C-alpha cells in the first residue's frame, strides 16, 4: 500500500482516522464517493459503516454510481459552532438518492433560497492544500 496521505473530511478537528475511513478518504480524494455493502446480508450504508448495523458482519466499500438526488431537508446556518464561525452563513442539506440512500453535506452554489424537493447533484471539493476534502451538493 502506498504511503498514507493526510486527509480530513470537511471542517473537522477529529483525527480519529481508521484504516477503513482512510480508504474512504483516499477514494474521496479522487472524486469517488463510497458507500459500504454488507458482505453477509447485502445491506447498504451511506455514509459507510465498517460493520453492518443489522448482522455486525464486515461491510466493504463500494463506489456510489448515483450522482443525482433530491433535497430532503435543509438548514441555513446563520449562527455556527465556533469552528465554522468564519464560514457562516452556510447551507446544510440532506439529499436523497433514487435508491433511498441519503447524504448530509453543504450546498455550495446556491443563488436562491433552497426548497424541499429541488434537484441536487453530487460534487466534490478540496481546501487547505488539498488535505481537507469533501463531498458536496450542487444545484
Amino acid at each position, binding site marked *: 500500500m502506498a504511503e498514507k496521505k493526510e486527509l480530513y473530511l470537511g471542517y473537522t478537528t477529529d483525527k480519529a482516522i481508521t484504516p477503513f475511513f482512510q480508504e474512504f478518504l483516499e477514494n474521496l480524494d479522487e472524486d469517488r464517493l463510497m458507500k459500504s455493502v454488507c458482505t453477509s446480508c447485502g445491506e447498504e450504508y451511506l*455514509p459507510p459503516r465498517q460493520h453492518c448495523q443489522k448482522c455486525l458482519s464486515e461491510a466493504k466499500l463500494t463506489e456510489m454510481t448515483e450522482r443525482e438526488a433530491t433535497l430532503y*431537508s435543509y438548514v*441555513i446556518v446563520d*449562527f455556527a459552532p465556533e469552528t*465554522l464561525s468564519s464560514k457562516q452563513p*452556510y447551507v446544510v442539506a*440532506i439529499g436523497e438518492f433514487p435508491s433511498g440512500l441519503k447524504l448530509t453535506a453543504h450546498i455550495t452554489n446556491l443563488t436562491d433560497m433552497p426548497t424541499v424537493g429541488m434537484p441536487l447533484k453530487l460534487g466534490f471539493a478540496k481546501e487547505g492544500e488539498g488535505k481537507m476534502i469533501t463531498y458536496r451538493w450542487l444545484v
Partner: protein
Amino acid sequence: MVRRVAVVAGGHSKFGKRYDATMRELTAEAYKPIFDEGITQDKIDATVLSYAASQFTGQGAGSALMADYIGLQNKPHLRCESACATGTASLRAAWGMVASGLYDVMLVLGVEQMNRVSSATATEYMSRAGDMRWEYPYGISFPAFYALMASRYMSEYNMPHDILAKIAVKSHHYGAQNPKAHLPKEITFEEANSAIPICRPLNLYDCSLITDGAAGVVIAAEDRVKEFTDRPMWIKGIGAGASDNMIQDRPSLTSIPGAKYAAKAAYKMAGLEPKDMDMAEVHDCFTIAELIAYEDCGFAEPGKGREIVENKENYHDGRIPVNCDGGLKSKGHPLGATGISMTYEVLKQMRGEADKPSRQIDDVKHGFVHNVGQSGQFVNCFIYERGW
C-alpha cells in the same frame, strides 16, 4: 415485587445567567426548599445527581462535588447522562431503585452551568453531540438539527412560520409570570416572527436559552410516603424511547420516533390516554420541537398540531395546557436540570402552587412530562397522578 413510587417534594433554583454561582451553589439552591420541608440528609438513602456535559465547567466526576456540597457525601450517589434528557433519565434510574426495594427515599437532582463559556463555544460543544465523523464536519449545530426537522415539517404540511412564532409568544407569556424564569418577558407576534435568523427557518425566538440552573425532587416508596407529605404525586407511567443517531437516517423528520414510542409506553403503563391529561410539560428546546411534541404525545394527529396553537388550546385554561411555566424557551434550558424542572412544575401545578393565578391550571389530576435528549436519541415520558 414492584412498589409504587411518589414524588413527595421538589426544589428549584432561579434559572438564568448565574455568574453568582457554580454547580455547587445551584445544587444547594435546589435542595434547600426540600431540606426546609423536613427532608434532611439523614432521611435520604441515596441520590442521583446529574448534569449533561462536563465540558462547560471542566469539572469531572461532578456528582461527588454536588453530594459533598449539600452534606450527602456519605450517601451512595451516581450520575446519569442522556444529553438534554439527563433529568428524566436520572428519575427513571432512581424510580427503578426505589420500586425494586433497593432504597426507600432518594433525592434526584439535575444541574447545568453553561454560561462560563461563550455562546459560540457552547454551540460548538453541543454540536459535538452529533456524529463526530459524519455530521460534525459540516457544522450542524444543535438548532440546525431542529431546523432540518422544521424545513421538512413546513414543507410536508405547508405550514408557515407564523405557527412557530405563536408558540414562542405563549412560552414568553407564561415565562413572564414565573419568577424563576431566565427570560421573564412578554414578546409580540411580530417580534417572534421576524427576529434575527439563527438557523433558518428558525430564528432567535424559536430557540431555547443557554441557562444555568438546578432542580431537584425527592421520591419515596409507597409505605414511606406519609412520613413526608399528604399530597404525593404518584409516578403512574414511564416510557422511554430512542431514535437513529444520525438525523438523515430517521424514517421521518416530522416526528421523533423515540418520543412516539416513549409516550405510548407511558400511557400503556399508566392505563391512561392523551385525553386524560390535564397538563403537559414538553421539551420545547425549539418551537418546532413543541409542535412535534403535541403530535408525538397524542394531543393532536400528525400534521394537526397547529390547530392546538391556532385555537390556543395550549394555554392554561385550554384543552391541554402546555409549558405554562415558560418552557425551555423562556424559563430556560440548563440541560441536566430541565427534566427535573418539568417534574417540579407538574408537582406545583397539581398542588395549586403556581406562582400566579394567571398561570395556575385548574384541577390537575394527571400531568405529562416529555423530555428529549439531543435531537431524539434519548426520550423519557412520565405520567403523574394526584394522590389526594
